[in-house]
């Protein structure tokens, strides 16, 4: 017997007696590149539906970056005035805050995989006739979109920290945020493949995300650090997102040479200044590696 008849509605219009309603028979097509793209879209769309249903999430996840930016930024301003060469501290930490807000939101998006497992929906996706990789990629795109939306809200605050708008600024920041969000979601999904309980996952986030954020130089320039901190800073992946973000923002400010050198020195490896393109490429490459591991892990699980 071949697959059930063509995807036709077996119905004689108007003539059907109410006792026997027409049976709508559908057909599931074989796997193809199109079906994989569709699966990615489905997983992504679900994230969007959930986001729309839970708008509070956007508001609550804004609290932390706003605290850093305005409370910490304004509060420490008086202490740091002497060393910032006239640059407002809020302006200085703004690129860092853009990065961490994306990072936290992306991590929370990835955490939804742990929820999905606990509530069973993950199973519904895992038994569908699509590749596991499509589900993982869809999840990463979903996390990246949600986190970038969050980033856009913060981008709208540029005027409040004396950063003038321009098309290249908005575009540059947005693309970098998108890339960072994708990589961080991939990292979170990779962790979620292993960590099966929400509490453990939250614990892991505290253990990894907070140090990554503090060490990355989001809140301080990365020159003249003590040796151990400089070392940790150079191996922190977030460093390579904060630095180009700061370069993009500072590129649109009218800064003195001294201020530029003091506040945005760039990352150095044994005295060699890492070019911005390489920094961005590292964020991309790390994201791809983690995506690969995440896919491999989900393929291996039964």
């Amino acid at each position, binding site marked *: *017997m071949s697959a059930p008849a063509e995807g036709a509605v077996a119905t004689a219009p108007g003539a059907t007696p109410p006792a026997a309603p027409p049976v709508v028979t*559908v057909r*599931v097509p*074989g796997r193809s590149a199109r079906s994989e793209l569709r699966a990615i879209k*489905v997983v992504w769309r679900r994230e969007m539906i959930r986001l729309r249903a839970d708008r509070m999430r956007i508001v609550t996840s804004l609290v932390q970056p706003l605290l850093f930016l305005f409370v910490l930024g304004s509060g420490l301003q008086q202490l740091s005035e002497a060393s910032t060469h006239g640059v407002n501290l809020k302006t200085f930490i703004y690129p860092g805050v853009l990065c961490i807000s994306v990072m936290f939101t992306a991590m929370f998006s990835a955490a939804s995989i742990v929820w999905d497992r606990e509530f069973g929906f993950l199973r519904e996706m895992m*038994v569908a006739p*699509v590749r596991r990789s499509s589900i993982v990629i869809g999840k990463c795109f979903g996390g990246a979109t949600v986190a970038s939306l969050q980033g856009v809200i913060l981008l709208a605050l540029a005027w409040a920290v004396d950063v003038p708008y321009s098309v290249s600024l908005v575009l540059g920041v947005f693309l970098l945020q998108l890339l960072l969000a994708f990589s961080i979601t991939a990292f979170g999904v990779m962790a979620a493949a292993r960590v099966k309980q929400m509490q453990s996952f939250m614990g892991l986030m505290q253990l990894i995300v907070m140090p990554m954020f503090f060490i990355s130089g989001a809140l301080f320039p990365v020159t003249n650090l003590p040796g151990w901190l400089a070392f940790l800073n150079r191996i922190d992946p977030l460093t390579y997102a904060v630095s180009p973000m700061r370069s993009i923002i500072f590129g649109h400010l009218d800064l003195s040479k001294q201020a530029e050198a003091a506040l945005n020195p760039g990352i150095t490896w044994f005295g060699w200044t890492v070019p911005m393109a390489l920094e961005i490429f590292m964020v991309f490459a790390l994201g791809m590696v983690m995506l690969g591991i995440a896919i491999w892990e989900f393929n291996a699980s039964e």
Partner: protein
Amino acid sequence: MPSAISVKDLRKSFGEFEAVRGVSFEVEAGEVFGFLGPNGAGKTTTINMLCTLAKPSGGGATVADHDIVSARDDVRRHIGLVFQDPTLDGYLTAEQNLRLHAELYGVEKGLVAPRMQQVLEMVGLWERRGAQVLTFSGGMRRRLEIARGLMHSPRVLFLDEPTIGLDPQTRNSIWGYIRQLQESEEITIFMTTHYMDEAEFCGRIAIMDHGEIVALDSPGALKEQVGADRIRIETDDDGAAIEALGERFGLEAAISEGAVTIAVPDGEQFVPRLFAELGVPIRSVSLSRPTLDDVFMSHTGSTIRDAEESGNKTDKRVAMQMMSGARR
């Protein structure tokens, strides 16, 4: 008649433990086939292998003419699944859950809406399609899961304990859908249950115990094989009664569920003799025609409830050992 499911010597071990020890059977297209057995008999493990969720350790099977190992995706395209545990997204509405499913399976766009209306009307949830699943009761969720499992017109629908934990009314309506489906669609239904009364609805049932199939036939034929009526008596002295039954009537009696139980061919004629000749005071007596419980008992030596209880005891003992081991 083509086979919807064909299983040959299927095995699955978890480390040392053999959960499924070589089962073989065929399910014909259009059949309602039941897997009956106590918890832990290997039913869910078998169903997981047939649904491509677990890899067999040995043997093989085809579902809807596709091999469960080498053609995993082709199997998945043609099966619908309803699990014991819920797998719905509670934050989405019923309609959104079904739409996501249809898209994930690649159902043609124009057919999604009519098919959805059909399956939702069948389970009586069409009116509630716009409500968040979180607001649904347990019975409604199970019905929605069944509707979703049918969204892509599967050739085989797998139901793993579809009525567990539901009230009798919902259980009845779920059985109603299954019968309705059998009439209206070309579909084979494979289900597991440990409710004896439900197994009666199946065309054929396989009784599973300790990872093996111990009997496989229609419920009627299985009961005929047992042949005997079952008599349960409560006495003042069970030990003496068992002895007397053996000596005077040549019957092998056993204690199950707290009463002395014997199987005899013609129960009605036997009861008067029992009272006259047993010699041990009898407090109560009950006579029953063979049921699937008796079938289960004749093949495994215990009732399904006893089997579950002893299974639980083993579990508890293991847990206790683990705990005391941890303390040391």
